[in-house]
């Protein structure tokens, strides 16, 4: 379902020299498969997810999702493809503060051709245990509740693949397992492939497939390790 082939991605240093981040000869995820990708901070995990999501373009290589090489699509085409086929859960939830929980989920449907489906949005929020908090804005929700809204939003358009970028990193221990369970259960129910990246080993035992980015990425850790971290934005 997802196939990466000969992916190369490099950034440009301030002095103009290239800074290689990713070099992945082959990477596959089957339809409905759930896997976790482990990598240390600054190893290019987020960059890889953004390439899969069509947010960033690789310098070279093929990104095929459901038989379609998205690197060949125009930017607008990739935007539409992302809206309709890819779900994305961010580490920092990324809910829009001016919108209620329900509106944040509806926002995920706004940019598709099928349009919004208020019933599905409400159902999703009920499924993640927030049926009673539809009208609450993010500021009125706990951290765990915010991430659950983010999960509901990512699932809103029945994506082919759901990309979760360290979804439990900012969530307390009690909520971490709930989020993992929620992701796994809903993806299994809707037959959505799940690719979750993390820098910790804590959740890996729950997944049948655990890949280490250091093993599939041929850019040597010494090189990647010297690069600026994701937090300062240079990697993205």
């Amino acid at each position, binding site marked *: 379902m997802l196939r990466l082939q000969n992916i190369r991605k490099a950034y440009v240093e301030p002095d103009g020299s290239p800074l290689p981040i990713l070099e992945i000869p082959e990477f596959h995820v089957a339809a409905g498969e759930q896997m976790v990708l482990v990598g240390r901070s600054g190893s290019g995990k987020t960059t890889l997810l953004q390439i899969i999501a069509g*947010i960033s373009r690789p310098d070279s290589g093929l990104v095929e999702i459901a038989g379609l090489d998205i690197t060949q699509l125009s930017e607008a085409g990739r935007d539409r493809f992302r809206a309709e086929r890819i779900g994305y859960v961010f580490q920092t939830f990324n809910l829009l503060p001016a919108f209620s929980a329900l509106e944040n989920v509806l*926002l995920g*449907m*706004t940019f598709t051709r099928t349009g919004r489906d208020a019933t599905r949005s409400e159902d999703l929020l009920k499924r993640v245990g927030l049926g009673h908090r539809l009208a609450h804005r993010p500021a009125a929700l706990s951290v765990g509740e915010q991430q659950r809204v983010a999960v509901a939003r990512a699932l809103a358009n029945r994506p082919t693949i759901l990309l979760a970028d360290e979804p439990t990193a900012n969530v307390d221990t009690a909520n971490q397992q709930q989020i993992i369970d929620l992701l796994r259960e809903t993806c299994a129910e809707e037959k959505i492939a799940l690719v979750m990246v993390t820098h910790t080993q804590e959740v890996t035992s729950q997944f049948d497939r655990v890949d280490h980015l250091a093993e599939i990425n041929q850019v040597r850790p010494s090189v990647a390790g010297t690069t600026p971290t994701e937090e300062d*934005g240079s990697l993205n």
Partner: protein
Amino acid sequence: MSLWKIAWRSIQQRKLSSLLTGLSIALGVALVVIVLVIHGVVSQSFSEAAQGYHLILGAKGGKLQLTLNTVFHLSQPIENVPYSFFKEFTEYQDESGNHVRGKYASAVEVAVPYCLGDSYKDFRVVGTTPDLFEKLSYGAYPDGTLKHYQFAQGSNFDAHDFHAAVIGAVAARQAGLKLGDHFPITHGIADENAKIHDEDLFHVVGILAPTGTPNDRAVFVNMEGFYLIADHVKPLPKQEDSIDGVLKMHLEQLRSAHNHLQRAAAAKDVPATAATQIKEADQLIDEILRAAKPQSIRPHSGATKTAGDETEHDGAEKSPRHRHPPSLATDKQIPLPENQREVTAVLLLLKNDVFSQVLYNKINEGDMAQAVFPSREVTNLFEGIVGHVRMILLVLAVLVVVVAGVGVMVSIYNSMNDRRREIGIMRALGAARSTVMSIVLMESVLLALLGGMAGVILGHVTIGLFAPFVTATTGVMINFWQPAPAIHFAGTFISPEVILIPALLVLATIVGFLPALIAYRTDVARALSDAP
């Protein structure tokens, strides 16, 4: 969720900033609305005031002055013209009762005389005839139907009721005049020391419905009563200060009385007893006139002087040198002889538009009077002076709106840094560059539209609050919901206020373009990596 709602939520998120930005737009638009409406309504009112007739005739002098004091009751009246000049535009009966058609009467539909120079409180008094309200209109509706004078109370005055008065709507309200009230008029205009004719009281028989023209601020009295006021009698020429002159004057007065009594006798609403008395008095006058006819006017001589002295000693009558008005004229129901009458202006409604230019040329070629096209004078006034003032006000008001528009741009532009992450999130959820650009443009449009609508309401509320003041100072009727009068735009007539909102939308699109461009160019990956 629609993009409009996303834009609206963004506005809500920055309540204070959005409110202030919208308010600045509202104030600018309100200013434009006020300028457009007030100027438009005043301009329309002035134009309409100069409609309903073709020409104004008056003494030689400034054309604008003649228009201002005749149509708008402003400025000082120019000199008068003889009553005989007015008669040239009418059909009348001569001394012998023969029907006479004035020199220009065949071209004239209606000629209405205006006698000016007096006032009541702050309002100009116009001595005129009932024809003003019966036969002239004060403009036309958009469908071409003429606007005829309507009476809110009472009715038009009767030509035989010499001291009847009709009051304009504003004048009646502000002067507190009601039907049946008696009031004196003051000789002179806006002069505290002017003489009050409290011996000649006029009574109110009608109050006009509002017309939206300067006539709302005027007091109209029967010209006959106006003439009977002492200071309004035209002094007789010097050569008539003789016995012959006295006789001629008395004969004139008798003829005038004769004509008047004949008209009174012919009136249907006169009681039978009064009609008999009138007929008897008329026969007596008729006999006197017949007796006087064979006598030729004697040359100036001592005998005549003696006769004059005798008259003076009689005590019952005084020489015309010593009294105003002559004794017969002081009888309040005997009209002033025509040789002692003058008119300040004549409003001419012609039978055909073509006649207006012909008459205009003919009269202006003569020495007696001038003719003016009132509508032309008003147009010149507005285009020459008032139009420039309006344009300056309008430019200033539009500049205020433009500055407010720049405020919108600054407000949204400043928010873009905070919104970079939001834009990144929307892009990550599948929003295209053009979509986030549209959302920012919609935000600008919403701010301008809501601010503009608030401005239109604010402008009209302000107009409503100041309407009484505008009405009081200009006589122009104006309501808070009144739109700016239609102007010719793109092949059709349309209120400038209707153009205002689309113009605002264009402005909003222009000022929203820069922040929208920033949204368009936002790098998603970089925006998402920004700390929340």
